[in-house]
């Protein structure tokens, strides 16, 4: 066990000095006996059903496999990746993924932070709003996609009549079918689903801030807004960074809402890497090529995860507990 781990649990145990590490001879053992009995089952499933597919994804991306017969696999080096460079739709999809990461992450983080700052003050209804804002996070993305498809339906939906009612009739029109509107709608839907999660991360971080600083600001006559900008938000810097990273990693998982509502259309205007890979592998029967697209998605994920893992040391995680 790492020294940080031990020292973290020590104060809770009520002991003054960190307990001595286990005797050296034991620490040198390899994984066997009781330890393996506890760890191997979970790790086995993890390796067989997550890591093997991961490796297979990478291996298949260097083949021209059509997905039908295993005897038809031929390694073709980096040809798939060379094709990616020429594939206009892939470029579009990559840009759209960037839109999801940048656009939806910024909106999510700002919205979540502002809401947390507002709702942290207990007032009538503050807990109700907290609870409501987390609801979309438990919904099936398929359901979310289908319901919004109905609401935004240009003929039988609710949005256009509503806009006419409140005098914004000139905005009425086609929504998911409009290549200029579909992507922003899907980004907003991504925000809608997850902002509550990040709001709660901010709320818990706010609860752990020392009270004296904010008291001092009040004594000095700072307004609530001044206090938030000059005192509270700087103290949340670490949490903001964490939320930005988590939200970015999460935004790369976008698939179901796009798949259900637009399927990547109209005319690829909402195509993202995973929908394009799905199309290539299962409709176009280019499994090798589809996996090359996914490898690009994985590489982006790995880069972001690297930054996240650096923060995930146990001592850092203490803040949210």
């Amino acid at each position, binding site marked *: *066990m790492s020294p940080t781990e031990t020292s973290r*649990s020590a104060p809770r*145990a*009520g002991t003054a000095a960190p307990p001595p590490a*286990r005797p050296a001879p034991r620490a*040198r053992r*390899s*994984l066997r006996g009781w330890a*393996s009995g*506890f*760890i191997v*089952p*979970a790790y086995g*499933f*993890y390796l*067989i*059903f*997550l890591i093997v*597919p*991961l490796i*297979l994804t990478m291996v298949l991306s260097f083949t021209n496999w059509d*997905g039908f017969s295993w005897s038809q696999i031929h390694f073709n080096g980096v040809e798939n990746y060379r094709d990616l460079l020429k594939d206009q739709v892939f470029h579009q999809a990559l840009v759209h993924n960037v839109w999801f990461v940048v656009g939806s992450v910024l909106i999510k983080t700002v919205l979540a932070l502002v*809401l947390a700052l*507002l*709702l*942290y003050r*207990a*007032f*009538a*209804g*503050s*807990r*109700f*709003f907290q609870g409501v804002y*987390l*609801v*979309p996070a*438990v*919904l*099936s993305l*398929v359901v979310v996609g*289908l*319901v*919004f498809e*109905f609401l935004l*339906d240009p003929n*039988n939906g609710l949005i256009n009549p509503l806009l006419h009612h409140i005098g914004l009739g000139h905005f009425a029109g086609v929504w998911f079918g409009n290549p200029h509107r579909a992507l922003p709608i899907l980004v907003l839907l991504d925000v809608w689903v997850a902002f509550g999660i990040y709001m709660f991360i901010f*709320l*818990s971080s706010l*609860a752990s801030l020392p009270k004296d600083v904010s008291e001092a600001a009040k004594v000095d006559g700072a307004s609530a807004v001044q206090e938030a900008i000059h005192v509270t938000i700087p103290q949340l810097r670490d949490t903001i960074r964490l939320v930005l990273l*988590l939200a970015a*990693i999460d935004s790369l998982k976008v698939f179901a809402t796009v798949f*259900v509502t637009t399927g990547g259309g109209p005319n690829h205007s909402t195509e993202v890497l*995973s929908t394009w890979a799905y199309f290539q592998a299962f409709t176009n029967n280019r499994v090798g090529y589809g996996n090359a697209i*996914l490898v690009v998605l*994985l590489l982006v994920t790995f880069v*972001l*995860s690297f930054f*996240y893992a650096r923060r995930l040391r146990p001592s850092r995680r203490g803040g949210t*507990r």
Partner: protein
Amino acid sequence: MTTATTTRANRTRRFPYRMIWLYPLLALLALTILFPLAWMFYSAFKTNSAVLANPFSFPLHPTLANFRALLSEGELPFWLRNSALVTAVSVVLVVGLSAAAAYGFSTFEFRGKNLLFAFLILGLMIPPQALVIAGFKWLSILHLTDSFGGLIFTYCSWTPFGILVLRNFFDSIPKDLREAATIDGASHFTIFWRVLLPLARPAVSTIAIFNVVWIWNDFIYPLVYLQSQDKYTVPVGVLQFQGRSTSAIGEQMAVLAVATAVPLLVYFLFRRHFVRGVLEGAVKG
């Protein structure tokens, strides 16, 4: 998870006259969540012509016809059964596997432990849909496609979240407690099963609830791994109604309402655990 308790304990509720301008804004945002859900639920009780005639209105003549039709002719009952079966079995396995592994990581010292542990974090980061193509081909080698087994085993690889949360919990339990048990001659299994696991009940519930929501709602794996319609889970089955847009809106809303009812119920019953899970590093979702 301390949010709720601290707010309640330290601050008295008072009406914030200075903040009254906030209510319309907060309410508008809440409405974007509550209205679509409410609309979905009440439209499920309207006939199709009623939905088309006035999509906004509450059901003036509420009818159960949509639900009756779904129960008698559709495959919804099968999908519900499948989802319930897959979710129940998977969640029990995921919780058991992650609890055991968390105990192992928290208790034993062995070479490469930190590396093995860090390697699990990869599993939290990877977008599930990135592995589904290769995963499907891999399952076909194992003869597990179009079976609940393939799906359940895949979910059994979703243990990193549980291991992370439970290891943190086990690490925070005083070592004296375990040492006392060891001196009493308890085996590791006894310590794990009779001492630590009962203490970890809140953390275990958090993990279980999170996995219920994830697995019940999971879409891409059943979409790709299952081919026979009678094996579909609810999220994939729901999609079969798409395309009949105007002919059966009421019925479609009924399906969606049923699909949503389970996660919503879990949320309302166990909101506190769910919030705790969010804070414990929920990065999937």
